[in-house]
């Protein structure tokens, strides 16, 4: 885990690089909370940020067997938190899958796909891009969360 607070107005304010390591998710979370807390991010928003981070980072770790590197970038501007998670795994758009059908009973309830439901509903914007080419290709998920 290498926090890299950037010194210029260019680029995100916080960049965290981690390997494909489940234990590193909590280190990333702690670093992100330490970055956002002094900026006035309120407790309910912080919980939403932590849940969204958890879902976006645990997804490539659990499913992306060829993922070796994950980068988390965060920024805060005018009441909005921008969070970007990139990985170097094979092309995969987690936002492509539709939400599970609504359910009214335990038997109908889905056991999968709830992470992306949380990402969609706890953010005000979420998009996927495949960036770069060849060995530099990355999956990038960018989300914005309102501080409220």
């Amino acid at each position, binding site marked *: 885990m290498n926090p890299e607070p950037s010194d210029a107005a260019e680029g995100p304010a916080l960049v965290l690089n981690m390997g494909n390591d489940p*234990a590193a*998710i909590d280190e990333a979370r702690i670093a992100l909370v330490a970055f956002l807390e002094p900026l006035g991010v309120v407790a*309910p928003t912080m919980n939403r940020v*932590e849940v969204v981070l958890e879902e976006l980072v645990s997804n490539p770790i659990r499913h992306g067997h060829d993922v070796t590197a994950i980068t988390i970038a965060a920024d805060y501007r005018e009441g909005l938190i921008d969070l970007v998670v990139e990985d170097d795994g094979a092309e995969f758009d987690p936002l492509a899958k539709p939400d599970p059908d609504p359910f009214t009973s335990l038997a109908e309830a889905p056991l999968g796909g*709830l992470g992306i439901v949380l990402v969609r509903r706890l953010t005000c914007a979420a998009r996927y891009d495949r960036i770069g080419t060849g060995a530099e290709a990355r999956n990038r998920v960018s989300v914005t969360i309102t501080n409220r």
Partner: protein
Amino acid sequence: MMDMQFTDVGGVTKAVLVGRLDSFSVGEVETRFVANIVPKEQSAVVDLSEVSFIASLGIRMLIGTARALQRSNARFAMFGANDAVMEIIETTSLGEIIPVVDTEDEAIAAVSA
């Protein structure tokens, strides 16, 4: 890290979860959680008052356990969730299929009705 305790309250299994129910913790505790509840084939209540965080894998563990109990005609309820955990329970619609109440007494009543 997650800690768990299990007791029997008049024929209802009571599970107390303590800590963060994130993806890493769920991987560590899910088998023990299920193994202490499902084979007893009796209704269960879960105390969430000391759970500070939950994400999708934690929700999945709760749904899976409730569903397994249902096959034995046993019920499942939860109580004491803080605001942060409650928001995630509501966002995933979990509260529509598993009773989520304030107190242990209400949870016991919900599975005994």
